[in-house]
């Protein structure tokens, strides 16, 4: 029927059309519109992780999402999904007011139908446009912001990237060899597969796995991630890091964590060691689901405790200001404690 709105899963052959649509209706130079390799890595597995709204056989809306099964097929039964990008015709340059009334219907039908098709048990939206909070609130999403914590290296004498940090607040050096803790870097999939760490994934939803870590981090097509396991008699934590080199300085982004909240508290000497190993200015950590008290016990400082402090988060291109990451999630009759970190969804991907 002419003008009838059809919503369906995209196919791999639709990628070019989707990229053109993103370019024209969202951002001209958006990396997902330019970089097919990244697009395919994020949104294509056996099928595409994208729904299309079509009118007269032309795309009028796309909804991109990342199911965790994208990285480990065995996680399929969990049906945990990260919402990623929702673009409707005439939604140009991220100026939401241009989404006029006639497109509101398309946006809603696409959103509803996508989740009707996916039947998720958990949906997480990370990096949400704050103007969409009221909508998600109405849909009974729990809304929050990621906490942003950091630790400045005790081995440096001045900061190049962080602004307005009071040096006297720096923590004292702690060497890991004076504790019962040890750590080891994991270099490849074989090493990771051989570890006895399956029980560490039970502490949170969305549920991750060894294969998830391999696919998401070790096999990333653009970024190099560093996976460390921390032991106290046995392995109790896994920390995933990404190093940024900027202005002759290294910065450690602590982008994902596996392990209990309680064992997070032992990480302080590990932080000191890796700050030294990578000659980094600081380490930062975005998180939801770990209490402020635990983060403090691990020696991390809360960025928001000092209003003048600037801990940049955007480096592609560099933006010299603090960035709040708004999140929302909804559980559908499942139990489990939700934790969300920087690398969840599409929040830690190339942007240039």
């Amino acid at each position: 029927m002419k003008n009838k709105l059809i919503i369906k899963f995209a196919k791999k052959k639709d990628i070019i059309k989707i990229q053109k649509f993103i370019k024209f209706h969202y951002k001209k130079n958006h990396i997902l519109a330019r970089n097919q390799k990244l697009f395919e890595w994020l949104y294509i597995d056996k099928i595409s992780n994208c729904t299309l709204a079509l009118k007269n056989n032309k795309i009028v809306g796309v909804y991109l999402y990342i199911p965790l099964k994208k990285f480990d097929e065995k996680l399929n039964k969990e049906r945990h999904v990260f919402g990623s990008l929702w673009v409707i015709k005439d939604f140009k340059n991220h100026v939401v007011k241009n989404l006029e009334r006639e497109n509101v219907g398309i946006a809603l039908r696409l959103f509803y139908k996508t989740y009707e098709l996916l039947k998720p048990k958990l949906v997480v939206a990370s990096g949400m446009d704050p103007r969409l909070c009221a909508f998600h609130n109405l849909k009974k999403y729990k809304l929050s912001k990621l906490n942003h914590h950091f630790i400045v290296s005790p081995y440096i004498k001045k900061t190049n990237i962080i602004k307005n940090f009071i040096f006297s607040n720096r923590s004292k050096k702690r060497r890991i060899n004076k504790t019962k803790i040890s750590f080891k870097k994991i270099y490849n999939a074989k090493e990771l597969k051989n570890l006895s760490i399956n029980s560490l994934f039970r502490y949170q939803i969305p549920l991750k796995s060894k294969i998830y870590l391999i696919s998401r981090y070790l096999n990333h097509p653009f970024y190099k991630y560093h996976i460390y396991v921390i032991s106290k008699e046995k392995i109790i934590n896994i920390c995933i890091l990404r190093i940024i080199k900027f202005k002759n300085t290294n910065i450690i982004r602590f982008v994902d964590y596996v392990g209990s909240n309680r064992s997070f508290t032992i990480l302080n000497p590990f932080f000191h060691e890796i700050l030294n190993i990578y000659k980094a200015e600081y380490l930062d950590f975005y998180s939801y689901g770990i209490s402020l008290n635990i983060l403090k016990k691990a020696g991390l400082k809360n960025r928001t405790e000092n209003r003048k402090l600037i801990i940049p988060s955007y480096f592609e291109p560099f933006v010299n200001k603090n960035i709040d990451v708004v999140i929302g999630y909804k559980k559908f009759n499942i139990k489990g404690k939700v934790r969300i970190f920087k690398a969840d969804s599409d929040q830690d991907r190339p942007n240039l």
Partner: protein
Amino acid sequence: MNNKQKYQNIFVKSLSIKTGKFNENIKYNEIPEWDSIGHMTLISGLEEGFGITMDTDDIVDFSSFKKGLEILAKYKIKF
């Protein structure tokens, strides 16, 4: 609560209109809260609140609080 009160409550909540700012003469884009994103939240709220699915034409025609009453009446909601 009658349907008119329910309608008004959904309006105020969906558009996050502050108490005292609401009146029955409000129109689309005449207050900052009722922009396209607000409209999406409002339509979603009304669909959920009244258990209806609105036609695209009605979503487009829904341009004021009063017009909304007329449109919802088409879905057999009595005010």
